[in-house]
Protein backbone atom coordinates (compact mmCIF):
# COMPACT_ATOMS: atom_id res chain seq x y z
CA UNK A 1 0.00 0.00 0.00
CA UNK A 2 2.76 2.39 0.97
CA UNK A 3 4.59 1.41 -2.22
CA UNK A 4 1.55 2.45 -4.23
CA UNK A 5 1.65 5.87 -2.59
CA UNK A 6 5.39 6.15 -3.20
CA UNK A 7 4.97 5.07 -6.80
CA UNK A 8 2.09 7.47 -7.38
CA UNK A 9 4.06 10.30 -5.80
CA UNK A 10 6.99 9.65 -8.14
CA UNK A 11 4.62 9.45 -11.10
CA UNK A 12 2.82 12.58 -10.01
CA UNK A 13 5.94 14.70 -10.58
CA UNK A 14 7.65 13.00 -13.52
CA UNK A 15 10.05 15.84 -14.25
CA UNK A 16 11.18 15.98 -10.64
CA UNK A 17 11.61 12.21 -10.60
CA UNK A 18 13.53 12.22 -13.87
CA UNK A 19 15.83 15.09 -12.97
CA UNK A 20 16.55 13.77 -9.49
CA UNK A 21 17.32 10.33 -10.91
CA UNK A 22 19.63 11.77 -13.55
CA UNK A 23 21.41 13.90 -10.98
CA UNK A 24 21.81 10.93 -8.65
CA UNK A 25 22.94 8.94 -11.68
CA UNK A 26 25.65 11.48 -12.45
CA UNK A 27 27.36 10.59 -9.20
CA UNK A 28 27.20 6.92 -10.10
CA UNK A 29 28.53 7.63 -13.58
CA UNK A 30 31.40 9.67 -12.15
CA UNK A 31 32.49 6.73 -10.03
CA UNK A 32 31.98 4.09 -12.72
CA UNK A 33 33.76 6.15 -15.37
CA UNK A 34 36.75 6.84 -13.14
CA UNK A 35 37.11 3.28 -11.92
CA UNK A 36 36.46 2.08 -15.46
CA UNK A 37 39.15 4.32 -16.90
CA UNK A 38 41.59 3.21 -14.21
CA UNK A 39 40.92 -0.46 -14.84
CA UNK A 40 40.67 -0.01 -18.58
CA UNK A 41 43.97 1.77 -18.88
CA UNK A 42 45.77 -0.69 -16.64
CA UNK A 43 44.34 -3.58 -18.62
CA UNK A 44 45.38 -1.91 -21.85
CA UNK A 45 48.86 -1.32 -20.46
CA UNK A 46 49.08 -4.95 -19.43
CA UNK A 47 47.95 -6.11 -22.88
CA UNK A 48 50.52 -3.93 -24.54
CA UNK A 49 53.25 -5.18 -22.20
CA UNK A 50 52.25 -8.75 -23.05
CA UNK A 51 52.49 -7.83 -26.72
CA UNK A 52 56.24 -7.32 -26.41
CA UNK A 53 56.68 -11.08 -26.17
CA UNK A 54 59.37 -10.90 -23.51
CA UNK A 55 59.85 -13.28 -20.59
CA UNK A 56 61.39 -10.77 -18.23
CA UNK A 57 62.27 -7.13 -17.91
CA UNK A 58 65.20 -5.35 -16.26
CA UNK A 59 64.38 -1.85 -15.04
CA UNK A 60 66.45 1.01 -13.75
CA UNK A 61 67.26 1.13 -10.03
CA UNK A 62 64.64 3.01 -8.10
CA UNK A 63 62.00 2.98 -10.83
CA UNK A 64 58.40 2.28 -9.94
CA UNK A 65 56.68 -0.88 -11.08
CA UNK A 66 53.90 0.64 -13.14
CA UNK A 67 55.42 4.03 -14.05
CA UNK A 68 56.81 4.58 -17.51
CA UNK A 69 60.30 5.51 -16.33
CA UNK A 70 62.95 7.65 -18.02
CA UNK A 71 66.32 7.37 -19.73
CA UNK A 72 68.29 6.56 -16.59
CA UNK A 73 69.92 3.16 -17.15
CA UNK A 74 73.37 2.65 -18.54
CA UNK A 75 73.31 0.89 -21.87
CA UNK A 76 76.34 -1.11 -20.70
CA UNK A 77 74.02 -3.36 -18.72
CA UNK A 78 72.70 -4.62 -22.02
CA UNK A 79 75.95 -6.41 -22.82
CA UNK A 80 75.90 -8.09 -19.42
CA UNK A 81 72.29 -9.25 -19.93
CA UNK A 82 72.98 -10.57 -23.41
CA UNK A 83 75.88 -12.60 -22.07
CA UNK A 84 73.72 -14.48 -19.57
CA UNK A 85 72.87 -18.13 -19.97
CA UNK A 86 69.43 -18.89 -21.54
CA UNK A 87 69.04 -15.35 -22.92
CA UNK A 88 67.89 -15.64 -26.50
CA UNK A 89 67.23 -11.99 -27.18
CA UNK A 90 67.55 -8.76 -25.18
CA UNK A 91 66.41 -5.42 -26.50
CA UNK A 92 66.66 -1.97 -24.95
CA UNK A 93 63.78 0.46 -24.73
CA UNK A 94 63.98 4.20 -24.20
CA UNK A 95 61.06 6.14 -22.83
CA UNK A 96 60.85 9.89 -22.94
CA UNK A 97 57.96 11.76 -21.41
CA UNK A 98 56.43 14.35 -23.68
CA UNK A 99 54.32 15.94 -20.98
CA UNK A 100 51.49 14.61 -18.88
CA UNK A 101 50.81 10.93 -19.34
CA UNK A 102 51.97 10.83 -22.95
CA UNK A 103 55.40 9.61 -23.87
CA UNK A 104 57.39 8.58 -26.89
CA UNK A 105 59.31 5.32 -27.05
CA UNK A 106 62.61 4.53 -28.73
CA UNK A 107 63.22 0.96 -29.96
CA UNK A 108 65.72 -1.07 -31.91
CA UNK A 109 63.19 -1.93 -34.56
CA UNK A 110 64.52 -5.29 -35.77
CA UNK A 111 65.11 -6.71 -32.29
CA UNK A 112 61.85 -5.42 -30.92
CA UNK A 113 59.90 -6.78 -33.87
CA UNK A 114 61.63 -10.14 -33.66
CA UNK A 115 60.85 -10.51 -29.96
CA UNK A 116 57.10 -9.99 -30.31
CA UNK A 117 56.57 -11.77 -33.60
CA UNK A 118 56.64 -8.61 -35.75
CA UNK A 119 54.49 -5.55 -36.19
CA UNK A 120 51.22 -5.84 -38.03
CA UNK A 121 51.06 -2.70 -40.14
CA UNK A 122 47.64 -1.47 -41.16
CA UNK A 123 49.28 1.07 -43.41
CA UNK A 124 52.91 1.87 -44.38
CA UNK A 125 55.84 0.26 -42.62
CA UNK A 126 58.99 0.70 -40.54
CA UNK A 127 61.05 3.89 -40.22
CA UNK A 128 63.26 4.73 -43.19
CA UNK A 129 64.45 8.23 -42.31
CA UNK A 130 65.72 10.03 -39.21
CA UNK A 131 62.44 11.88 -38.60
CA UNK A 132 60.15 8.89 -39.17
CA UNK A 133 57.74 7.72 -36.52
CA UNK A 134 55.42 4.71 -36.32
CA UNK A 135 52.13 4.97 -34.45
CA UNK A 136 49.36 2.57 -33.52
CA UNK A 137 45.92 2.59 -35.09
CA UNK A 138 44.21 4.09 -32.02
CA UNK A 139 46.62 7.00 -31.91
CA UNK A 140 46.14 7.51 -35.64
CA UNK A 141 42.38 7.53 -35.17
CA UNK A 142 42.44 9.94 -32.24
CA UNK A 143 44.86 12.36 -33.90
CA UNK A 144 43.45 11.80 -37.40
CA UNK A 145 46.84 10.81 -38.82
CA UNK A 146 47.67 8.83 -41.96
CA UNK A 147 50.91 7.55 -43.41
CA UNK A 148 52.73 10.62 -44.65
CA UNK A 149 51.07 12.97 -42.13
CA UNK A 150 53.26 14.91 -39.77
CA UNK A 151 53.03 15.01 -36.02
CA UNK A 152 54.87 17.43 -33.82
CA UNK A 153 56.46 16.37 -30.56
CA UNK A 154 59.78 17.10 -28.84
CA UNK A 155 59.96 20.28 -30.96
CA UNK A 156 60.20 18.37 -34.16
CA UNK A 157 57.91 17.40 -37.03
CA UNK A 158 57.80 13.65 -37.48
CA UNK A 159 56.57 11.91 -40.59
CA UNK A 160 54.33 8.92 -40.00
CA UNK A 161 55.89 6.04 -41.86
CA UNK A 162 53.60 3.28 -40.61
CA UNK A 163 50.47 2.61 -38.61
CA UNK A 164 50.49 -0.68 -36.69
CA UNK A 165 47.81 -2.67 -34.89
CA UNK A 166 47.73 -1.55 -31.26
CA UNK A 167 49.14 -3.88 -28.60
CA UNK A 168 52.88 -3.30 -28.88
CA UNK A 169 53.87 -1.57 -25.64
CA UNK A 170 53.71 2.02 -26.94
CA UNK A 171 51.56 4.03 -29.31
CA UNK A 172 54.30 6.27 -30.67
CA UNK A 173 57.74 4.85 -31.48
CA UNK A 174 60.94 6.15 -33.03
CA UNK A 175 64.38 4.62 -33.36
CA UNK A 176 66.15 4.45 -30.00
CA UNK A 177 69.26 6.19 -31.29
CA UNK A 178 67.20 9.13 -32.51
CA UNK A 179 65.47 9.39 -29.14
CA UNK A 180 68.75 9.27 -27.21
CA UNK A 181 70.20 12.03 -29.35
CA UNK A 182 67.15 14.27 -29.01
CA UNK A 183 66.95 13.74 -25.27
CA UNK A 184 70.70 14.39 -24.91
CA UNK A 185 71.00 10.98 -23.31
CA UNK A 186 73.38 9.01 -25.47
CA UNK A 187 74.12 5.59 -24.02
CA UNK A 188 71.10 5.77 -21.71
CA UNK A 189 68.08 3.51 -21.83
CA UNK A 190 64.99 2.94 -19.71
CA UNK A 191 64.67 -0.81 -19.55
CA UNK A 192 65.63 -4.06 -21.18
CA UNK A 193 63.17 -6.66 -22.40
CA UNK A 194 64.53 -10.18 -22.42
CA UNK A 195 63.38 -13.31 -24.23
CA UNK A 196 64.74 -16.65 -23.06
CA UNK A 197 65.36 -19.90 -24.86
CA UNK A 198 62.65 -21.42 -22.69
CA UNK A 199 60.20 -19.51 -20.46
CA UNK A 200 60.64 -22.26 -17.87
CA UNK A 201 64.07 -20.79 -17.10
CA UNK A 202 62.69 -17.39 -16.16
CA UNK A 203 63.08 -17.70 -12.40
CA UNK A 204 66.56 -19.20 -12.65
CA UNK A 205 67.75 -16.36 -14.89
CA UNK A 206 66.21 -13.73 -12.61
CA UNK A 207 67.89 -15.27 -9.57
CA UNK A 208 71.24 -15.33 -11.33
CA UNK A 209 70.97 -11.70 -12.53
CA UNK A 210 69.85 -10.42 -9.16
CA UNK A 211 73.14 -11.65 -7.66
CA UNK A 212 75.11 -9.47 -10.05
CA UNK A 213 72.66 -6.56 -10.23
CA UNK A 214 71.22 -6.28 -6.71
CA UNK A 215 70.04 -2.70 -7.28
CA UNK A 216 68.02 -3.48 -10.37
CA UNK A 217 64.35 -4.41 -10.24
CA UNK A 218 64.00 -7.48 -12.44
CA UNK A 219 60.54 -8.89 -13.04
CA UNK A 220 59.16 -11.87 -14.84
CA UNK A 221 56.59 -10.48 -17.29
CA UNK A 222 53.81 -12.49 -15.60
CA UNK A 223 54.76 -10.90 -12.30
CA UNK A 224 54.98 -7.45 -13.80
CA UNK A 225 51.58 -7.69 -15.44
CA UNK A 226 50.07 -8.73 -12.14
CA UNK A 227 51.34 -5.43 -10.76
CA UNK A 228 49.13 -3.46 -13.12
CA UNK A 229 46.43 -2.97 -10.53
CA UNK A 230 44.73 -0.02 -8.94
CA UNK A 231 46.30 -1.05 -5.65
CA UNK A 232 49.70 -0.07 -6.99
CA UNK A 233 48.50 3.36 -8.05
CA UNK A 234 48.07 5.31 -4.81
CA UNK A 235 47.22 8.49 -6.74
CA UNK A 236 44.37 6.75 -8.54
CA UNK A 237 43.15 5.23 -5.30
CA UNK A 238 43.17 8.64 -3.64
CA UNK A 239 41.34 10.13 -6.60
CA UNK A 240 38.71 7.39 -6.48
CA UNK A 241 38.30 8.26 -2.81
CA UNK A 242 37.71 11.90 -3.70
CA UNK A 243 35.17 11.02 -6.37
CA UNK A 244 33.38 8.63 -4.02
CA UNK A 245 33.09 11.42 -1.44
CA UNK A 246 31.83 13.78 -4.12
CA UNK A 247 29.26 11.22 -5.21
CA UNK A 248 28.03 10.82 -1.63
CA UNK A 249 27.80 14.59 -1.29
CA UNK A 250 26.06 14.78 -4.64
CA UNK A 251 23.49 12.15 -3.74
CA UNK A 252 23.02 13.86 -0.41
CA UNK A 253 22.38 17.31 -1.91
CA UNK A 254 20.12 16.10 -4.70
CA UNK A 255 17.97 14.02 -2.39
CA UNK A 256 17.96 16.68 0.32
CA UNK A 257 16.61 19.26 -2.11
CA UNK A 258 14.20 16.92 -3.88
CA UNK A 259 12.77 15.47 -0.68
CA UNK A 260 12.77 18.76 1.21
CA UNK A 261 10.64 20.38 -1.46
CA UNK A 262 8.50 17.25 -1.59
CA UNK A 263 7.87 17.48 2.14
CA UNK A 264 6.97 21.16 1.87
CA UNK A 265 4.70 20.42 -1.06
CA UNK A 266 3.02 17.56 0.77
CA UNK A 267 2.33 19.04 4.19
CA UNK A 268 -1.35 18.49 3.52
CA UNK A 269 -0.89 14.83 2.55
CA UNK A 270 1.30 14.28 5.56
CA UNK A 271 -1.31 15.94 7.75
CA UNK A 272 -4.01 13.67 6.34
CA UNK A 273 -1.93 10.58 7.03
CA UNK A 274 -1.30 11.75 10.57
CA UNK A 275 -4.97 12.47 11.14
CA UNK A 276 -5.64 8.90 10.00
CA UNK A 277 -3.31 7.70 12.73
CA UNK A 278 0.02 7.39 10.90
CA UNK A 279 2.88 7.68 13.36
CA UNK A 280 6.31 9.22 12.69
CA UNK A 281 7.64 5.84 11.60
CA UNK A 282 4.96 5.45 8.95
CA UNK A 283 5.66 8.87 7.47
CA UNK A 284 9.41 8.27 7.68
CA UNK A 285 8.97 4.94 5.93
CA UNK A 286 7.16 6.52 3.01
CA UNK A 287 9.86 9.11 2.40
CA UNK A 288 12.65 6.61 2.94
CA UNK A 289 11.15 4.22 0.42
CA UNK A 290 10.69 7.00 -2.08
CA UNK A 291 14.35 7.90 -1.62
CA UNK A 292 15.53 4.33 -2.01
CA UNK A 293 13.46 4.04 -5.18
CA UNK A 294 14.93 7.29 -6.51
CA UNK A 295 18.42 6.02 -5.70
CA UNK A 296 17.76 2.74 -7.50
CA UNK A 297 16.39 4.49 -10.58
CA UNK A 298 19.29 6.93 -10.35
CA UNK A 299 21.83 4.11 -10.13
CA UNK A 300 20.34 2.45 -13.19
CA UNK A 301 20.55 5.78 -15.04
CA UNK A 302 24.14 6.14 -13.86
CA UNK A 303 25.09 2.67 -15.07
CA UNK A 304 23.52 3.39 -18.47
CA UNK A 305 25.31 6.73 -18.65
CA UNK A 306 28.65 5.01 -17.93
CA UNK A 307 28.18 3.17 -21.23
CA UNK A 308 27.73 6.63 -22.72
CA UNK A 309 31.05 7.86 -21.33
CA UNK A 310 32.73 4.70 -22.59
CA UNK A 311 31.34 5.37 -26.05
CA UNK A 312 32.55 8.98 -25.93
CA UNK A 313 36.03 7.92 -24.84
CA UNK A 314 36.41 5.15 -27.40
CA UNK A 315 35.09 7.38 -30.14
CA UNK A 316 37.01 10.56 -29.50
CA UNK A 317 40.10 9.70 -27.45
CA UNK A 318 40.73 5.96 -27.95
CA UNK A 319 44.50 6.35 -27.62
CA UNK A 320 44.54 8.55 -24.51
CA UNK A 321 41.99 6.63 -22.49
CA UNK A 322 40.30 3.28 -22.28
CA UNK A 323 37.24 2.77 -20.12
CA UNK A 324 36.37 -0.70 -18.98
CA UNK A 325 32.92 -1.63 -17.69
CA UNK A 326 33.65 -2.78 -14.16
CA UNK A 327 30.63 -4.84 -13.11
CA UNK A 328 31.89 -5.32 -9.57
CA UNK A 329 31.56 -1.57 -9.06
CA UNK A 330 27.88 -1.47 -10.04
CA UNK A 331 26.66 -2.52 -6.60
CA UNK A 332 29.44 -0.56 -4.88
CA UNK A 333 28.62 2.69 -6.66
CA UNK A 334 24.89 2.12 -6.14
CA UNK A 335 25.33 1.51 -2.41
CA UNK A 336 27.57 4.56 -2.04
CA UNK A 337 24.92 6.68 -3.77
CA UNK A 338 22.21 5.13 -1.66
CA UNK A 339 24.15 6.07 1.46
CA UNK A 340 24.32 9.69 0.30
CA UNK A 341 20.64 9.63 -0.58
CA UNK A 342 19.59 8.21 2.78
CA UNK A 343 21.67 10.85 4.56
CA UNK A 344 19.96 13.44 2.38
CA UNK A 345 16.44 12.34 3.26
CA UNK A 346 17.04 12.26 7.01
CA UNK A 347 16.37 15.90 7.73
CA UNK A 348 13.34 16.28 5.42
CA UNK A 349 11.91 13.01 6.74
CA UNK A 350 12.38 14.01 10.38
CA UNK A 351 10.74 17.34 9.63
CA UNK A 352 7.80 15.52 8.08
CA UNK A 353 7.61 12.98 10.90
CA UNK A 354 7.49 15.76 13.48
CA UNK A 355 4.93 17.81 11.59
CA UNK A 356 1.76 18.53 13.51
CA UNK A 357 -1.28 17.02 11.82
CA UNK A 358 -3.28 20.17 12.43
CA UNK A 359 -0.79 22.54 10.80
CA UNK A 360 -1.91 21.60 7.33
CA UNK A 361 -5.52 20.70 7.91
CA UNK A 362 -6.86 24.18 8.43
CA UNK A 363 -10.39 23.99 7.29
CA UNK A 364 -11.83 27.36 8.06
Amino acid at each position, binding site marked *: *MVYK*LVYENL*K*HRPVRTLLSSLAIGLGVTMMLALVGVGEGMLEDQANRARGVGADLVVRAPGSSVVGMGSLSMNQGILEYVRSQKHVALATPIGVHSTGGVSSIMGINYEEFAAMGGGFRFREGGKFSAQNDVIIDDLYAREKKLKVGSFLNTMNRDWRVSGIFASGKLARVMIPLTVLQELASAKGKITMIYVKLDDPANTQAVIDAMKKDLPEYPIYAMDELIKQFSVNNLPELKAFIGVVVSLAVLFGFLVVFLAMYTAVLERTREIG*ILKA*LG*AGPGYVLGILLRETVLLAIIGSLCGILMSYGTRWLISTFIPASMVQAIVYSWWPIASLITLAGAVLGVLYPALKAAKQDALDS*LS*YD
Partner: protein
Amino acid sequence: MAIIEIQNLRKTFRSGDVDVHALRGVNLLVEKGEFLAVVGKSGSGKSTLFHILGGLTPPTSGVVKIDGQSLTDLDEAGRTKLRRNSVGFVFQKYNLLPTLTIRDNIDIARDISGKTAPWDAAFLEVVELLGIAEKLDRKPRQLSGGEQQRVAIARAIVNQPAILLADEPTGNLDTENSDMVLDLLRHLNKRTGQTVLMITHDPEAAAFADRTVQMRDGELYSA
Protein backbone atom coordinates in the same frame (compact mmCIF):
# COMPACT_ATOMS: atom_id res chain seq x y z
CA MET B 1 -22.27 3.63 29.70
CA ALA B 2 -21.56 6.85 27.82
CA ILE B 3 -19.08 6.47 24.96
CA ILE B 4 -17.93 10.06 25.41
CA GLU B 5 -17.56 11.63 28.82
CA ILE B 6 -16.35 15.21 29.15
CA GLN B 7 -16.14 17.14 32.43
CA ASN B 8 -14.95 20.70 32.86
CA LEU B 9 -12.77 20.51 29.74
CA ARG B 10 -10.57 23.53 29.15
CA LYS B 11 -8.31 24.39 26.27
CA THR B 12 -6.12 27.47 26.26
CA PHE B 13 -4.01 28.47 23.28
CA ARG B 14 -1.10 30.75 23.77
CA SER B 15 -0.85 33.00 20.75
CA GLY B 16 1.92 35.50 21.20
CA ASP B 17 1.54 37.04 24.64
CA VAL B 18 -2.20 36.47 24.90
CA ASP B 19 -3.99 33.42 26.19
CA VAL B 20 -6.94 32.38 24.04
CA HIS B 21 -9.45 30.39 26.05
CA ALA B 22 -11.05 28.29 23.31
CA LEU B 23 -12.84 25.94 25.72
CA ARG B 24 -13.89 27.20 29.16
CA GLY B 25 -15.28 24.22 31.03
CA VAL B 26 -17.16 21.99 28.63
CA ASN B 27 -19.36 19.19 29.99
CA LEU B 28 -20.85 16.56 27.71
CA LEU B 29 -22.09 12.98 27.76
CA VAL B 30 -22.74 11.10 24.53
CA GLU B 31 -24.36 7.68 24.51
CA LYS B 32 -23.16 4.91 22.26
CA GLY B 33 -25.09 4.99 18.99
CA GLU B 34 -26.12 8.60 19.36
CA PHE B 35 -26.08 11.13 16.49
CA LEU B 36 -25.21 14.50 18.01
CA ALA B 37 -25.06 17.86 16.29
CA VAL B 38 -22.90 20.69 17.65
CA VAL B 39 -23.92 24.14 16.49
CA GLY B 40 -22.50 27.53 17.30
CA LYS B 41 -20.98 30.65 15.87
CA SER B 42 -17.61 30.70 14.18
CA GLY B 43 -14.82 30.92 16.74
CA SER B 44 -16.94 29.52 19.56
CA GLY B 45 -14.65 26.48 20.02
CA LYS B 46 -16.44 23.68 18.13
CA SER B 47 -13.43 22.57 16.09
CA THR B 48 -11.17 22.73 19.12
CA LEU B 49 -13.49 20.33 20.93
CA PHE B 50 -13.37 17.91 18.00
CA HIS B 51 -9.60 18.17 17.71
CA ILE B 52 -9.28 17.16 21.35
CA LEU B 53 -11.74 14.29 20.94
CA GLY B 54 -9.92 13.22 17.77
CA GLY B 55 -6.51 13.20 19.42
CA LEU B 56 -5.19 15.96 17.19
CA THR B 57 -4.36 18.22 20.12
CA PRO B 58 -4.13 17.66 23.88
CA PRO B 59 -6.60 19.18 26.36
CA THR B 60 -5.33 21.77 28.83
CA SER B 61 -7.35 20.44 31.77
CA GLY B 62 -10.48 18.52 32.65
CA VAL B 63 -11.70 15.00 32.01
CA VAL B 64 -12.11 13.55 28.50
CA LYS B 65 -12.86 9.88 28.04
CA ILE B 66 -13.69 7.92 24.91
CA ASP B 67 -15.01 4.43 25.54
CA GLY B 68 -13.62 4.65 29.06
CA GLN B 69 -10.12 5.67 27.90
CA SER B 70 -8.85 8.95 29.31
CA LEU B 71 -7.29 11.37 26.83
CA THR B 72 -5.86 13.71 29.44
CA ASP B 73 -2.66 11.84 30.03
CA LEU B 74 -2.03 10.62 26.49
CA ASP B 75 1.28 11.55 24.89
CA GLU B 76 1.73 12.07 21.14
CA ALA B 77 2.19 8.33 20.57
CA GLY B 78 -0.97 7.63 22.53
CA ARG B 79 -2.93 10.19 20.53
CA THR B 80 -1.60 8.65 17.31
CA LYS B 81 -2.99 5.30 18.43
CA LEU B 82 -6.30 6.94 19.33
CA ARG B 83 -6.56 8.47 15.85
CA ARG B 84 -5.65 5.16 14.29
CA ASN B 85 -8.11 2.97 16.15
CA SER B 86 -10.80 4.89 18.00
CA VAL B 87 -11.89 7.89 15.95
CA GLY B 88 -12.77 8.62 12.36
CA PHE B 89 -12.51 12.17 11.07
CA VAL B 90 -14.47 13.83 8.28
CA PHE B 91 -13.34 17.33 7.37
CA GLN B 92 -15.05 20.17 5.61
CA LYS B 93 -12.43 19.93 2.88
CA TYR B 94 -12.56 16.28 1.89
CA ASN B 95 -8.84 15.76 2.44
CA LEU B 96 -8.40 12.76 0.19
CA LEU B 97 -4.90 11.91 -1.02
CA PRO B 98 -4.92 13.26 -4.58
CA THR B 99 -2.49 10.78 -6.12
CA LEU B 100 -4.29 7.68 -4.91
CA THR B 101 -7.45 6.06 -6.27
CA ILE B 102 -10.60 6.00 -4.16
CA ARG B 103 -9.98 2.38 -3.23
CA ASP B 104 -6.42 3.15 -2.18
CA ASN B 105 -7.53 6.20 -0.20
CA ILE B 106 -9.71 3.89 1.85
CA ASP B 107 -7.09 1.14 2.00
CA ILE B 108 -4.38 3.43 3.29
CA ALA B 109 -6.45 4.07 6.41
CA ARG B 110 -6.61 0.30 6.87
CA ASP B 111 -2.91 -0.07 6.15
CA ILE B 112 -2.10 2.54 8.79
CA SER B 113 -4.04 0.56 11.37
CA GLY B 114 -2.33 -2.64 10.21
CA LYS B 115 -5.27 -4.31 8.49
CA THR B 116 -4.65 -6.15 5.26
CA ALA B 117 -7.67 -8.44 4.88
CA PRO B 118 -10.07 -7.67 2.03
CA TRP B 119 -13.13 -5.56 2.78
CA ASP B 120 -15.79 -7.51 4.64
CA ALA B 121 -19.40 -7.81 3.54
CA ALA B 122 -20.56 -5.15 5.99
CA PHE B 123 -18.13 -2.58 4.62
CA LEU B 124 -18.94 -3.49 1.02
CA GLU B 125 -22.56 -2.73 1.91
CA VAL B 126 -21.51 0.64 3.31
CA VAL B 127 -19.62 1.39 0.10
CA GLU B 128 -22.72 0.46 -1.85
CA LEU B 129 -24.89 2.61 0.40
CA LEU B 130 -22.56 5.60 -0.02
CA GLY B 131 -22.90 5.23 -3.78
CA ILE B 132 -19.17 5.07 -4.46
CA ALA B 133 -18.90 1.41 -5.44
CA GLU B 134 -18.62 2.30 -9.13
CA LYS B 135 -15.97 4.95 -8.54
CA LEU B 136 -13.38 2.96 -6.63
CA ASP B 137 -10.75 3.04 -9.33
CA ARG B 138 -11.02 6.75 -10.02
CA LYS B 139 -8.82 9.50 -8.64
CA PRO B 140 -10.43 12.04 -6.26
CA ARG B 141 -10.32 14.88 -8.81
CA GLN B 142 -12.57 12.83 -11.11
CA LEU B 143 -15.31 12.88 -8.47
CA SER B 144 -17.78 15.59 -7.50
CA GLY B 145 -17.49 17.26 -4.09
CA GLY B 146 -20.41 15.27 -2.75
CA GLU B 147 -18.86 12.03 -3.94
CA GLN B 148 -15.50 12.93 -2.43
CA GLN B 149 -17.16 13.64 0.90
CA ARG B 150 -18.87 10.25 0.79
CA VAL B 151 -15.47 8.65 0.16
CA ALA B 152 -14.13 10.55 3.17
CA ILE B 153 -16.95 9.07 5.25
CA ALA B 154 -16.14 5.57 4.03
CA ARG B 155 -12.48 6.11 4.89
CA ALA B 156 -13.39 7.45 8.34
CA ILE B 157 -15.43 4.39 9.31
CA VAL B 158 -13.46 1.64 7.57
CA ASN B 159 -11.63 0.82 10.80
CA GLN B 160 -14.87 0.74 12.80
CA PRO B 161 -14.00 3.64 15.11
CA ALA B 162 -15.82 4.19 18.39
CA ILE B 163 -16.84 7.65 17.24
CA LEU B 164 -17.13 9.46 13.93
CA LEU B 165 -16.31 13.18 14.08
CA ALA B 166 -17.55 15.29 11.19
CA ASP B 167 -16.50 18.95 11.21
CA GLU B 168 -18.88 20.86 8.94
CA PRO B 169 -19.06 17.96 6.49
CA THR B 170 -21.52 19.78 4.26
CA GLY B 171 -19.85 23.19 4.42
CA ASN B 172 -18.61 22.97 0.85
CA LEU B 173 -21.65 21.27 -0.65
CA ASP B 174 -24.84 22.48 -2.32
CA THR B 175 -28.23 21.64 -0.79
CA GLU B 176 -28.78 18.52 -2.84
CA ASN B 177 -25.39 17.02 -2.00
CA SER B 178 -25.64 18.19 1.62
CA ASP B 179 -28.93 16.41 2.06
CA MET B 180 -27.51 13.27 0.54
CA VAL B 181 -24.47 13.28 2.85
CA LEU B 182 -26.60 14.07 5.92
CA ASP B 183 -29.06 11.38 4.99
CA LEU B 184 -26.23 8.88 4.64
CA LEU B 185 -24.76 9.84 8.01
CA ARG B 186 -28.12 9.31 9.66
CA HIS B 187 -28.64 6.08 7.76
CA LEU B 188 -25.22 4.76 8.84
CA ASN B 189 -25.92 5.80 12.40
CA LYS B 190 -29.26 3.99 12.48
CA ARG B 191 -28.14 0.95 10.56
CA THR B 192 -24.75 0.21 12.09
CA GLY B 193 -25.12 2.01 15.39
CA GLN B 194 -22.11 4.17 14.56
CA THR B 195 -21.83 7.04 17.06
CA VAL B 196 -21.66 10.30 15.09
CA LEU B 197 -20.76 13.82 16.24
CA MET B 198 -21.26 16.53 13.68
CA ILE B 199 -20.42 20.22 13.73
CA THR B 200 -22.64 22.45 11.65
CA HIS B 201 -23.83 26.02 11.62
CA ASP B 202 -26.88 25.09 9.59
CA PRO B 203 -30.01 24.38 11.68
CA GLU B 204 -31.46 22.29 8.87
CA ALA B 205 -28.40 20.06 8.96
CA ALA B 206 -28.64 19.82 12.73
CA ALA B 207 -32.19 18.55 12.32
CA PHE B 208 -30.82 15.28 10.93
CA ALA B 209 -29.28 14.52 14.34
CA ASP B 210 -30.95 12.95 17.39
CA ARG B 211 -29.86 15.78 19.64
CA THR B 212 -28.27 19.20 19.25
CA VAL B 213 -25.97 21.05 21.61
CA GLN B 214 -24.85 24.62 21.21
CA MET B 215 -21.35 25.99 21.69
CA ARG B 216 -21.12 29.58 22.90
CA ASP B 217 -17.81 31.23 23.89
CA GLY B 218 -16.18 27.93 24.74
CA GLU B 219 -19.08 26.48 26.69
CA LEU B 220 -21.73 23.96 25.71
CA TYR B 221 -25.48 24.39 26.24
CA SER B 222 -28.26 22.04 25.30
CA ALA B 223 -30.31 23.56 22.53
